[in-house]
Protein backbone atom coordinates (compact mmCIF):
# COMPACT_ATOMS: atom_id res chain seq x y z
CA UNK A 1 0.00 0.00 0.00
CA UNK A 2 2.89 2.33 0.82
CA UNK A 3 4.38 1.73 -2.63
CA UNK A 4 1.07 2.51 -4.35
CA UNK A 5 0.68 5.67 -2.31
CA UNK A 6 4.30 6.67 -2.98
CA UNK A 7 3.71 6.20 -6.71
CA UNK A 8 0.55 8.28 -6.47
CA UNK A 9 2.36 11.08 -4.61
CA UNK A 10 5.19 11.11 -7.10
CA UNK A 11 2.82 11.16 -10.07
CA UNK A 12 0.76 13.93 -8.49
CA UNK A 13 3.86 15.98 -7.72
CA UNK A 14 5.25 15.65 -11.24
CA UNK A 15 1.83 16.48 -12.74
CA UNK A 16 1.51 19.55 -10.54
CA UNK A 17 5.04 20.72 -11.25
CA UNK A 18 4.31 20.43 -14.96
CA UNK A 19 0.86 21.99 -14.74
CA UNK A 20 2.18 25.22 -13.18
CA UNK A 21 5.54 25.15 -14.90
CA UNK A 22 5.93 28.92 -15.40
CA UNK A 23 5.67 29.81 -11.74
CA UNK A 24 7.80 26.82 -10.80
CA UNK A 25 10.47 27.88 -13.29
CA UNK A 26 10.49 31.35 -11.72
CA UNK A 27 10.92 30.02 -8.19
CA UNK A 28 13.56 27.53 -9.37
CA UNK A 29 15.58 30.41 -10.87
CA UNK A 30 15.51 32.36 -7.60
CA UNK A 31 16.54 29.32 -5.53
CA UNK A 32 19.29 28.55 -8.01
CA UNK A 33 20.66 32.12 -7.91
CA UNK A 34 20.56 32.20 -4.11
CA UNK A 35 22.54 29.02 -3.77
CA UNK A 36 24.91 30.04 -6.55
CA UNK A 37 25.81 33.20 -4.59
CA UNK A 38 26.47 31.15 -1.45
CA UNK A 39 28.45 28.62 -3.51
CA UNK A 40 30.58 31.29 -5.23
CA UNK A 41 31.62 32.92 -1.99
CA UNK A 42 32.25 29.55 -0.36
CA UNK A 43 34.43 28.64 -3.31
CA UNK A 44 36.52 31.84 -3.10
CA UNK A 45 36.74 31.40 0.65
CA UNK A 46 37.94 27.79 0.20
CA UNK A 47 40.65 28.99 -2.13
CA UNK A 48 41.83 31.72 0.24
CA UNK A 49 41.83 29.33 3.17
CA UNK A 50 43.92 26.81 1.26
CA UNK A 51 46.40 29.53 0.23
CA UNK A 52 46.69 30.68 3.83
CA UNK A 53 47.18 27.08 4.97
CA UNK A 54 49.95 26.58 2.38
CA UNK A 55 51.68 29.68 3.67
CA UNK A 56 51.28 28.64 7.29
CA UNK A 57 52.70 25.22 6.58
CA UNK A 58 55.87 26.76 5.14
CA UNK A 59 56.52 29.66 7.43
CA UNK A 60 59.51 31.41 5.95
CA UNK A 61 61.35 34.56 6.99
CA UNK A 62 63.14 36.21 4.12
CA UNK A 63 66.06 38.50 5.01
CA UNK A 64 66.93 40.80 2.10
CA UNK A 65 70.54 41.84 2.30
CA UNK A 66 72.14 45.16 1.35
CA UNK A 67 73.44 45.28 -2.20
CA UNK A 68 77.17 44.82 -2.62
CA UNK A 69 77.49 43.43 0.88
CA UNK A 70 80.92 41.83 1.34
CA UNK A 71 80.83 38.05 1.34
CA UNK A 72 82.26 37.86 4.84
CA UNK A 73 79.38 39.91 6.27
CA UNK A 74 76.88 37.91 4.27
CA UNK A 75 78.34 34.69 5.77
CA UNK A 76 78.15 36.21 9.23
CA UNK A 77 74.43 36.96 8.84
CA UNK A 78 73.82 33.50 7.43
CA UNK A 79 75.61 31.95 10.41
CA UNK A 80 73.56 34.07 12.78
CA UNK A 81 70.35 32.83 11.16
CA UNK A 82 71.49 29.21 11.20
CA UNK A 83 72.33 29.39 14.90
CA UNK A 84 68.82 30.43 15.84
CA UNK A 85 66.93 27.61 17.58
CA UNK A 86 63.79 28.65 15.67
CA UNK A 87 65.21 27.93 12.25
CA UNK A 88 65.04 24.52 10.60
CA UNK A 89 66.52 25.27 7.22
CA UNK A 90 68.40 28.12 5.58
CA UNK A 91 68.64 28.82 1.87
CA UNK A 92 70.59 31.62 0.27
CA UNK A 93 68.97 32.99 -2.90
CA UNK A 94 71.35 34.87 -5.14
CA UNK A 95 70.16 37.83 -7.27
CA UNK A 96 70.47 35.62 -10.38
CA UNK A 97 68.29 32.89 -8.84
CA UNK A 98 65.74 35.49 -7.72
CA UNK A 99 65.61 36.96 -11.22
CA UNK A 100 65.13 33.49 -12.72
CA UNK A 101 62.28 32.69 -10.32
CA UNK A 102 60.61 36.02 -11.09
CA UNK A 103 60.69 35.24 -14.80
CA UNK A 104 59.17 31.84 -14.13
CA UNK A 105 56.37 33.28 -12.00
CA UNK A 106 55.63 36.34 -14.13
CA UNK A 107 56.61 35.59 -17.73
CA UNK A 108 54.52 38.56 -18.89
CA UNK A 109 56.84 40.97 -17.10
CA UNK A 110 59.97 39.66 -18.80
CA UNK A 111 60.37 42.80 -20.93
CA UNK A 112 60.39 45.11 -17.93
CA UNK A 113 63.11 43.08 -16.27
CA UNK A 114 65.17 42.95 -19.47
CA UNK A 115 64.98 46.72 -19.89
CA UNK A 116 66.58 47.33 -16.54
CA UNK A 117 70.28 48.05 -16.57
CA UNK A 118 71.13 45.80 -13.62
CA UNK A 119 69.53 42.94 -11.71
CA UNK A 120 67.20 44.65 -9.21
CA UNK A 121 66.99 41.68 -6.85
CA UNK A 122 69.11 41.62 -3.70
CA UNK A 123 70.59 38.51 -2.15
CA UNK A 124 68.07 36.93 0.17
CA UNK A 125 68.39 34.46 3.03
CA UNK A 126 65.25 32.32 3.37
CA UNK A 127 64.86 30.82 6.83
CA UNK A 128 62.22 28.10 7.15
CA UNK A 129 60.92 27.90 10.69
CA UNK A 130 60.94 24.63 12.61
CA UNK A 131 57.32 24.58 13.76
CA UNK A 132 54.45 26.66 12.34
CA UNK A 133 52.95 26.78 15.81
CA UNK A 134 55.98 28.58 17.23
CA UNK A 135 55.23 31.58 19.36
CA UNK A 136 54.61 34.61 17.21
CA UNK A 137 56.29 36.89 19.78
CA UNK A 138 59.46 34.80 19.85
CA UNK A 139 59.69 34.93 16.07
CA UNK A 140 59.15 38.69 16.07
CA UNK A 141 61.93 39.08 18.65
CA UNK A 142 64.26 37.07 16.40
CA UNK A 143 63.34 39.26 13.42
CA UNK A 144 63.91 42.44 15.44
CA UNK A 145 67.30 41.12 16.54
CA UNK A 146 68.27 40.40 12.95
CA UNK A 147 67.07 43.79 11.77
CA UNK A 148 69.63 45.45 14.03
CA UNK A 149 72.24 43.97 11.73
CA UNK A 150 73.46 46.67 9.32
CA UNK A 151 73.63 44.24 6.40
CA UNK A 152 69.93 43.36 6.56
CA UNK A 153 67.96 45.79 4.44
CA UNK A 154 64.47 44.34 4.81
CA UNK A 155 62.65 41.36 6.30
CA UNK A 156 59.53 39.64 4.98
CA UNK A 157 57.62 37.27 7.16
CA UNK A 158 54.79 35.41 5.39
CA UNK A 159 52.86 34.72 8.59
CA UNK A 160 51.41 38.20 8.24
CA UNK A 161 50.28 37.26 4.75
CA UNK A 162 48.85 33.97 5.92
CA UNK A 163 46.81 35.74 8.54
CA UNK A 164 45.65 38.43 6.15
CA UNK A 165 44.58 35.87 3.56
CA UNK A 166 42.85 33.83 6.21
CA UNK A 167 40.93 36.93 7.32
CA UNK A 168 40.05 37.63 3.70
CA UNK A 169 38.75 34.08 3.40
CA UNK A 170 36.62 34.50 6.50
CA UNK A 171 35.32 37.79 5.14
CA UNK A 172 34.42 36.19 1.79
CA UNK A 173 32.57 33.43 3.62
CA UNK A 174 30.72 35.93 5.83
CA UNK A 175 29.72 38.07 2.82
CA UNK A 176 28.59 34.91 1.02
CA UNK A 177 26.46 33.75 3.92
CA UNK A 178 25.01 37.24 4.39
CA UNK A 179 24.06 37.77 0.73
CA UNK A 180 23.12 34.14 0.29
CA UNK A 181 21.11 34.22 3.50
CA UNK A 182 19.05 37.13 2.24
CA UNK A 183 18.48 35.36 -1.08
CA UNK A 184 17.71 32.04 0.61
CA UNK A 185 15.12 33.87 2.69
CA UNK A 186 13.70 35.28 -0.54
CA UNK A 187 13.61 31.71 -1.93
CA UNK A 188 11.73 30.56 1.14
CA UNK A 189 9.13 33.32 0.71
CA UNK A 190 8.81 32.61 -3.02
CA UNK A 191 8.35 28.86 -2.52
CA UNK A 192 5.83 29.57 0.20
CA UNK A 193 3.86 31.83 -2.14
CA UNK A 194 4.08 29.46 -5.09
CA UNK A 195 2.70 26.64 -2.96
CA UNK A 196 -0.01 29.00 -1.68
CA UNK A 197 -1.04 29.72 -5.29
CA UNK A 198 -1.03 25.99 -6.01
CA UNK A 199 -3.21 25.32 -2.98
CA UNK A 200 -5.70 27.95 -4.14
CA UNK A 201 -5.63 26.68 -7.71
CA UNK A 202 -6.43 23.17 -6.50
CA UNK A 203 -8.92 24.09 -3.83
CA UNK A 204 -11.76 22.12 -5.38
CA UNK A 205 -9.54 19.08 -5.80
CA UNK A 206 -8.46 19.29 -2.15
CA UNK A 207 -12.11 19.55 -1.17
CA UNK A 208 -12.95 16.41 -3.14
CA UNK A 209 -10.03 14.51 -1.62
CA UNK A 210 -11.27 15.46 1.84
CA UNK A 211 -14.78 14.33 1.05
CA UNK A 212 -13.74 10.95 -0.32
CA UNK A 213 -11.74 10.24 2.83
CA UNK A 214 -8.25 11.58 2.11
CA UNK A 215 -6.17 12.17 5.23
CA UNK A 216 -4.45 15.49 5.92
CA UNK A 217 -1.10 13.86 5.23
CA UNK A 218 -2.35 12.35 1.98
CA UNK A 219 -3.48 15.77 0.77
CA UNK A 220 -0.38 17.61 1.96
CA UNK A 221 2.39 15.27 0.81
CA UNK A 222 2.31 16.24 -2.91
CA UNK A 223 2.60 19.92 -1.95
CA UNK A 224 5.50 19.21 0.41
CA UNK A 225 7.21 17.14 -2.27
CA UNK A 226 6.79 20.03 -4.72
CA UNK A 227 8.66 22.37 -2.35
CA UNK A 228 11.30 19.75 -1.61
CA UNK A 229 11.92 18.99 -5.30
CA UNK A 230 12.08 22.70 -6.18
CA UNK A 231 14.63 23.31 -3.39
CA UNK A 232 16.83 20.33 -4.25
CA UNK A 233 16.64 20.97 -8.00
CA UNK A 234 17.50 24.64 -7.47
CA UNK A 235 20.58 23.85 -5.39
CA UNK A 236 21.69 21.09 -7.78
CA UNK A 237 21.48 23.43 -10.77
CA UNK A 238 23.38 26.08 -8.82
CA UNK A 239 26.18 23.55 -8.12
CA UNK A 240 26.33 22.70 -11.82
CA UNK A 241 26.51 26.39 -12.73
CA UNK A 242 29.24 26.85 -10.13
CA UNK A 243 31.24 24.05 -11.75
CA UNK A 244 30.86 25.72 -15.15
CA UNK A 245 31.98 29.06 -13.70
CA UNK A 246 35.01 27.46 -12.04
CA UNK A 247 36.00 25.85 -15.33
CA UNK A 248 35.40 28.96 -17.44
CA UNK A 249 36.72 31.67 -15.10
CA UNK A 250 40.45 30.99 -15.60
CA UNK A 251 39.91 30.84 -19.39
CA UNK A 252 38.13 34.21 -19.27
CA UNK A 253 40.81 35.83 -17.09
CA UNK A 254 43.82 34.42 -18.93
CA UNK A 255 47.06 35.29 -17.15
CA UNK A 256 46.48 39.02 -16.93
CA UNK A 257 46.23 39.11 -13.14
CA UNK A 258 49.42 37.18 -12.48
CA UNK A 259 49.83 36.12 -8.85
CA UNK A 260 46.59 37.86 -7.83
CA UNK A 261 44.71 35.36 -9.97
CA UNK A 262 45.83 32.67 -7.55
CA UNK A 263 44.04 34.45 -4.74
CA UNK A 264 40.73 35.14 -6.45
CA UNK A 265 40.45 31.90 -8.38
CA UNK A 266 37.66 29.47 -7.44
CA UNK A 267 38.08 26.12 -5.86
CA UNK A 268 35.21 23.65 -6.06
CA UNK A 269 33.36 22.97 -2.86
CA UNK A 270 34.17 20.15 -0.50
CA UNK A 271 31.86 17.13 -0.36
CA UNK A 272 30.39 18.25 2.95
CA UNK A 273 29.69 21.71 1.51
CA UNK A 274 28.01 20.17 -1.56
CA UNK A 275 25.86 17.92 0.63
CA UNK A 276 25.03 20.87 2.92
CA UNK A 277 23.96 23.04 -0.01
CA UNK A 278 21.73 20.31 -1.47
CA UNK A 279 20.24 19.56 1.94
CA UNK A 280 19.83 23.31 2.53
CA UNK A 281 17.93 23.63 -0.75
CA UNK A 282 15.65 20.76 0.17
CA UNK A 283 15.13 22.15 3.64
CA UNK A 284 14.25 25.64 2.39
CA UNK A 285 11.82 24.17 -0.15
CA UNK A 286 10.20 21.84 2.35
CA UNK A 287 9.92 24.54 5.01
CA UNK A 288 8.52 27.09 2.54
CA UNK A 289 5.92 24.58 1.49
CA UNK A 290 5.11 23.60 5.07
CA UNK A 291 4.65 27.20 6.19
CA UNK A 292 2.26 27.78 3.31
CA UNK A 293 0.25 24.65 4.08
CA UNK A 294 0.07 25.54 7.77
CA UNK A 295 -1.49 28.88 6.85
CA UNK A 296 -3.59 28.04 3.81
CA UNK A 297 -4.45 24.36 4.04
CA UNK A 298 -6.21 24.00 7.33
CA UNK A 299 -8.09 20.79 7.02
Amino acid sequence: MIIYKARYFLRETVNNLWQYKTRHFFSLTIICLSFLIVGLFLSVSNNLRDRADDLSRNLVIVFYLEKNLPASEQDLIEQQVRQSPLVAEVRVVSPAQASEKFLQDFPGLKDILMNLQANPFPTAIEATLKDPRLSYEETLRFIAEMKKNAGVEDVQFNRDWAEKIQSLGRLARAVGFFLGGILVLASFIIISNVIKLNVFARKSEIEILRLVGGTNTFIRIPFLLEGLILGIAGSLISLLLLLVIIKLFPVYLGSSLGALQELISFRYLTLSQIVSLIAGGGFVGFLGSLSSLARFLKI
Partner: protein
Amino acid sequence: MIELYHVWKQYEKPQWALSDITLTVKTGEFCFITGPSGSGKSTLLKTIYREVLPTEGQIVIAGKNILRIPDHKIYLLRRNMGIVYQDFRLLFHRRVFDNVAVALQVLGSPRKDMKRKVFIALRMVNLHPRIWDYPSHLSYGEQQRLAIARAVVNNPRILLADEPTGNLDPKLAVEIIGLFKEINKQGTTVIICTHDKELIRQFGDRILFLHEGKLLRKDAA
Protein backbone atom coordinates in the same frame (compact mmCIF):
# COMPACT_ATOMS: atom_id res chain seq x y z
CA MET B 1 -27.55 2.74 11.83
CA ILE B 2 -27.78 6.51 11.49
CA GLU B 3 -29.38 8.33 14.42
CA LEU B 4 -30.05 12.04 14.67
CA TYR B 5 -31.12 13.48 18.01
CA HIS B 6 -32.63 16.95 18.18
CA VAL B 7 -30.44 18.32 15.44
CA TRP B 8 -30.66 22.06 14.87
CA LYS B 9 -28.73 24.07 12.32
CA GLN B 10 -28.66 27.79 11.86
CA TYR B 11 -26.53 29.46 9.16
CA GLU B 12 -27.85 32.95 9.75
CA LYS B 13 -30.20 34.33 12.33
CA PRO B 14 -33.15 34.15 12.60
CA GLN B 15 -33.82 31.27 10.19
CA TRP B 16 -33.18 27.66 11.09
CA ALA B 17 -32.00 25.41 8.27
CA LEU B 18 -32.84 22.40 10.46
CA SER B 19 -35.21 22.47 13.41
CA ASP B 20 -35.15 19.74 15.98
CA ILE B 21 -34.63 16.81 13.65
CA THR B 22 -34.78 13.45 15.33
CA LEU B 23 -34.74 10.37 13.17
CA THR B 24 -33.24 6.94 12.77
CA VAL B 25 -32.22 5.25 9.53
CA LYS B 26 -31.57 1.57 10.04
CA THR B 27 -28.69 -0.30 8.43
CA GLY B 28 -29.66 -1.43 4.94
CA GLU B 29 -32.60 0.94 4.70
CA PHE B 30 -33.51 2.73 1.45
CA CYS B 31 -34.74 6.16 2.27
CA PHE B 32 -35.83 9.30 0.41
CA ILE B 33 -35.66 12.78 1.87
CA THR B 34 -37.96 15.10 0.03
CA GLY B 35 -39.35 18.57 0.37
CA PRO B 36 -39.36 21.88 -1.49
CA SER B 37 -36.19 23.82 -2.34
CA GLY B 38 -34.63 25.38 0.76
CA SER B 39 -36.35 22.95 3.09
CA GLY B 40 -33.01 21.70 4.50
CA LYS B 41 -32.56 18.43 2.57
CA SER B 42 -28.96 19.14 1.57
CA THR B 43 -28.09 20.51 5.01
CA LEU B 44 -29.42 17.33 6.59
CA LEU B 45 -27.20 15.21 4.33
CA LYS B 46 -24.21 17.48 4.97
CA THR B 47 -24.56 17.03 8.72
CA ILE B 48 -24.50 13.26 8.22
CA TYR B 49 -21.17 13.31 6.37
CA ARG B 50 -20.03 16.15 8.63
CA GLU B 51 -19.38 18.77 6.06
CA VAL B 52 -21.64 20.95 8.18
CA LEU B 53 -21.67 20.88 11.97
CA PRO B 54 -25.10 21.18 13.58
CA THR B 55 -25.70 24.10 15.90
CA GLU B 56 -27.22 21.72 18.40
CA GLY B 57 -27.99 18.02 18.68
CA GLN B 58 -26.17 14.73 18.29
CA ILE B 59 -25.55 12.48 15.30
CA VAL B 60 -24.63 8.86 15.88
CA ILE B 61 -23.46 6.59 13.07
CA ALA B 62 -22.73 2.93 13.75
CA GLY B 63 -22.74 3.67 17.46
CA LYS B 64 -20.27 6.57 17.23
CA ASN B 65 -21.13 10.18 17.87
CA ILE B 66 -19.64 11.71 14.75
CA LEU B 67 -19.60 15.19 16.24
CA ARG B 68 -16.96 14.00 18.71
CA ILE B 69 -14.63 12.72 16.00
CA PRO B 70 -11.64 15.09 15.78
CA ASP B 71 -11.22 16.88 12.44
CA HIS B 72 -8.09 14.94 11.53
CA LYS B 73 -9.93 11.62 11.95
CA ILE B 74 -12.99 12.54 9.92
CA TYR B 75 -11.60 10.65 6.93
CA LEU B 76 -12.41 7.40 8.76
CA LEU B 77 -16.09 8.31 8.68
CA ARG B 78 -16.07 9.39 5.04
CA ARG B 79 -14.28 6.29 3.82
CA ASN B 80 -17.39 4.33 4.73
CA MET B 81 -19.63 6.67 2.76
CA GLY B 82 -20.28 7.27 -0.88
CA ILE B 83 -21.57 10.73 -1.60
CA VAL B 84 -23.19 12.08 -4.76
CA TYR B 85 -23.16 15.85 -4.68
CA GLN B 86 -25.74 18.12 -6.20
CA ASP B 87 -22.97 20.01 -8.04
CA PHE B 88 -21.11 16.73 -8.88
CA ARG B 89 -17.71 18.04 -7.65
CA LEU B 90 -15.72 16.51 -10.47
CA LEU B 91 -12.07 17.05 -11.32
CA PHE B 92 -12.38 18.65 -14.73
CA HIS B 93 -8.68 18.46 -15.57
CA ARG B 94 -8.65 14.71 -14.89
CA ARG B 95 -10.04 11.95 -17.04
CA VAL B 96 -13.18 9.99 -16.19
CA PHE B 97 -11.00 7.13 -14.90
CA ASP B 98 -9.09 9.38 -12.50
CA ASN B 99 -12.29 10.98 -11.23
CA VAL B 100 -13.55 7.61 -10.08
CA ALA B 101 -10.15 6.30 -9.02
CA VAL B 102 -9.61 9.18 -6.60
CA ALA B 103 -11.86 7.48 -4.03
CA LEU B 104 -9.60 4.40 -4.17
CA GLN B 105 -6.35 6.31 -4.32
CA VAL B 106 -6.90 7.77 -0.86
CA LEU B 107 -7.11 4.18 0.41
CA GLY B 108 -3.86 3.23 -1.33
CA SER B 109 -5.48 0.60 -3.55
CA PRO B 110 -3.15 -1.27 -5.90
CA ARG B 111 -3.33 0.02 -9.48
CA LYS B 112 -4.55 -3.28 -10.92
CA ASP B 113 -7.32 -3.58 -8.36
CA MET B 114 -8.18 0.07 -8.86
CA LYS B 115 -8.54 -0.35 -12.64
CA ARG B 116 -10.88 -3.30 -12.17
CA LYS B 117 -13.08 -1.54 -9.61
CA VAL B 118 -13.21 1.70 -11.60
CA PHE B 119 -14.26 -0.21 -14.72
CA ILE B 120 -16.99 -2.07 -12.81
CA ALA B 121 -18.31 1.19 -11.34
CA LEU B 122 -18.32 2.90 -14.73
CA ARG B 123 -20.05 -0.05 -16.35
CA MET B 124 -22.72 0.14 -13.66
CA VAL B 125 -23.60 3.66 -14.78
CA ASN B 126 -23.02 2.79 -18.44
CA LEU B 127 -20.12 5.20 -18.76
CA HIS B 128 -17.32 2.71 -19.42
CA PRO B 129 -16.98 3.65 -23.11
CA ARG B 130 -16.02 7.16 -22.01
CA ILE B 131 -13.34 6.07 -19.50
CA TRP B 132 -10.52 8.12 -21.07
CA ASP B 133 -12.57 11.24 -21.77
CA TYR B 134 -12.46 14.42 -19.74
CA PRO B 135 -15.60 15.34 -17.77
CA SER B 136 -15.92 18.55 -19.78
CA HIS B 137 -16.57 16.39 -22.86
CA LEU B 138 -19.46 14.63 -21.13
CA SER B 139 -23.08 15.72 -21.13
CA TYR B 140 -24.69 16.96 -17.91
CA GLY B 141 -26.35 13.61 -17.36
CA GLU B 142 -23.11 11.74 -18.00
CA GLN B 143 -21.31 13.93 -15.48
CA GLN B 144 -23.97 13.02 -12.94
CA ARG B 145 -23.47 9.33 -13.66
CA LEU B 146 -19.75 9.83 -13.24
CA ALA B 147 -20.36 11.34 -9.79
CA ILE B 148 -22.44 8.28 -8.94
CA ALA B 149 -19.70 5.92 -10.13
CA ARG B 150 -17.21 7.68 -7.84
CA ALA B 151 -19.62 7.35 -4.91
CA VAL B 152 -20.14 3.61 -5.33
CA VAL B 153 -16.67 2.52 -6.43
CA ASN B 154 -15.45 1.44 -2.98
CA ASN B 155 -18.66 -0.32 -1.94
CA PRO B 156 -19.57 2.13 0.84
CA ARG B 157 -21.70 1.14 3.82
CA ILE B 158 -23.71 4.33 3.48
CA LEU B 159 -24.62 6.01 0.21
CA LEU B 160 -25.80 9.61 0.37
CA ALA B 161 -27.09 11.25 -2.78
CA ASP B 162 -28.16 14.84 -3.15
CA GLU B 163 -30.50 15.15 -6.13
CA PRO B 164 -28.75 12.35 -8.06
CA THR B 165 -31.28 12.35 -10.88
CA GLY B 166 -31.84 16.09 -11.14
CA ASN B 167 -30.41 16.32 -14.64
CA LEU B 168 -31.29 12.97 -16.03
CA ASP B 169 -34.13 12.06 -18.35
CA PRO B 170 -36.91 10.06 -16.63
CA LYS B 171 -35.79 6.73 -18.13
CA LEU B 172 -32.19 7.17 -16.98
CA ALA B 173 -33.37 8.49 -13.61
CA VAL B 174 -35.30 5.28 -13.06
CA GLU B 175 -32.24 3.30 -14.10
CA ILE B 176 -30.03 5.19 -11.65
CA ILE B 177 -32.41 4.76 -8.74
CA GLY B 178 -32.71 1.12 -9.76
CA LEU B 179 -28.94 0.96 -9.49
CA PHE B 180 -29.07 2.47 -6.01
CA LYS B 181 -31.67 -0.12 -5.15
CA GLU B 182 -29.30 -2.86 -6.32
CA ILE B 183 -26.52 -1.44 -4.16
CA ASN B 184 -28.98 -1.24 -1.27
CA LYS B 185 -29.81 -4.93 -1.69
CA GLN B 186 -26.16 -5.69 -0.89
CA GLY B 187 -26.64 -4.13 2.55
CA THR B 188 -25.71 -0.52 1.88
CA THR B 189 -27.82 2.10 3.61
CA VAL B 190 -29.04 4.56 0.97
CA ILE B 191 -30.37 8.05 1.62
CA ILE B 192 -31.45 10.06 -1.40
CA CYS B 193 -32.56 13.68 -1.43
CA THR B 194 -34.93 14.38 -4.27
CA HIS B 195 -38.14 16.13 -5.16
CA ASP B 196 -38.94 13.82 -8.02
CA LYS B 197 -42.38 12.56 -6.92
CA GLU B 198 -42.52 9.90 -9.61
CA LEU B 199 -39.32 8.28 -8.36
CA ILE B 200 -40.49 8.44 -4.77
CA ARG B 201 -43.79 6.84 -5.76
CA GLN B 202 -42.02 4.10 -7.67
CA PHE B 203 -39.15 3.32 -5.28
CA GLY B 204 -39.93 4.92 -1.94
CA ASP B 205 -39.70 2.45 0.91
CA ARG B 206 -39.44 5.24 3.39
CA ILE B 207 -39.93 8.94 2.84
CA LEU B 208 -38.82 11.75 5.10
CA PHE B 209 -40.58 15.00 4.30
CA LEU B 210 -38.85 18.24 5.23
CA HIS B 211 -40.44 21.65 5.24
CA GLU B 212 -38.63 24.79 6.42
CA GLY B 213 -36.13 22.66 8.28
CA LYS B 214 -38.73 20.63 10.12
CA LEU B 215 -39.32 16.94 9.66
CA LEU B 216 -43.00 16.65 8.89
CA ARG B 217 -43.38 12.96 8.14
CA LYS B 218 -41.14 9.98 8.70
CA ASP B 219 -43.32 7.13 7.67
CA ALA B 220 -43.52 4.73 4.76
CA ALA B 221 -44.67 5.90 1.35
